[in-house]
């Protein structure tokens, strides 16, 4: 079963993250690299990406003629996706355990960030939707 583990945060948390010390950032990056390597070694890694900053985020709708209407205004409470992992595991419980590991990634001073990780099953195709 494939699951996506999503790490999201409001803009103010991104602003705090931008102020982390180099040492804190390096500690967090080292954790992430080791975590990804462990997922690769155990054969459950599918993909992982980090996303660009919220100030670059755009919301697009189509005009009647199909041309895109671009908007960069989001509510204050908007949770921006910061990054994700896609993993292929045996059970939801295994996905939850790994999400807890990602949640414990070190923050400032090496304390666990304790960021909530949203876990969702990824469908393998239109057939999963009965189409």
């Amino acid at each position, binding site marked *: 079963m494939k699951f*996506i583990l999503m790490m999201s945060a409001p803009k103010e948390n991104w602003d705090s993250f931008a102020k982390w010390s180099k040492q804190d950032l390096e500690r967090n990056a080292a954790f992430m690299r080791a975590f990804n390597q462990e997922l690769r070694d155990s054969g459950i890694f599918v993909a992982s990406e980090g996303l660009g900053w919220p100030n*670059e985020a755009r919301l697009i*709708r189509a005009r009647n003629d199909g041309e895109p209407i671009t*908007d960069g205004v989001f509510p204050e409470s908007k*949770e921006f*996706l910061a990054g994700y992992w896609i993993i292929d595991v045996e059970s939801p419980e295994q996905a939850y355990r790994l999400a807890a590991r990602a949640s414990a990634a070190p923050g400032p001073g090496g304390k666990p960030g304790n960021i909530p990780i949203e876990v*969702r099953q990824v469908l393998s195709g*239109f057939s999963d939707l009965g189409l």
Partner: protein
Amino acid sequence: MKYILLMTGTRGGVDTYRTWSKQDIDAHMAVLQSLNKELKNSGEFVVTQGLAGPEEAKLVRGEKNGAPVTDGIFPESKEFLLGYWIVDVATPERAYAIAGRISTAPGPGGVPTNMPIEVRRFAEHAPRES
């Protein structure tokens, strides 16, 4: 440049979608499948995925001993990811144009859903797809 196009909706929106007729769903999916094919032909397609319903979504934190604490309670206004496309395009404007196309996919009675699509660039330092 790689961009992710995120399609999200509230639980109420998902409940409405589930009342669409088969004909409306087929017409919607046909447009998206045709867009996927077009993106594959232009070499801009990386991947697309649909996600299982919001009722299965869980929020996970780690306890002090590392054990997962699982919660499935979200605010009413929570925007759930429904699915996404990853595209590799020359400019942000091209990503916006593709997002616009997704936004015009037909809803009930063939009227465009006009759903907002969030467009985000991938960070360059990020690990690549395996």
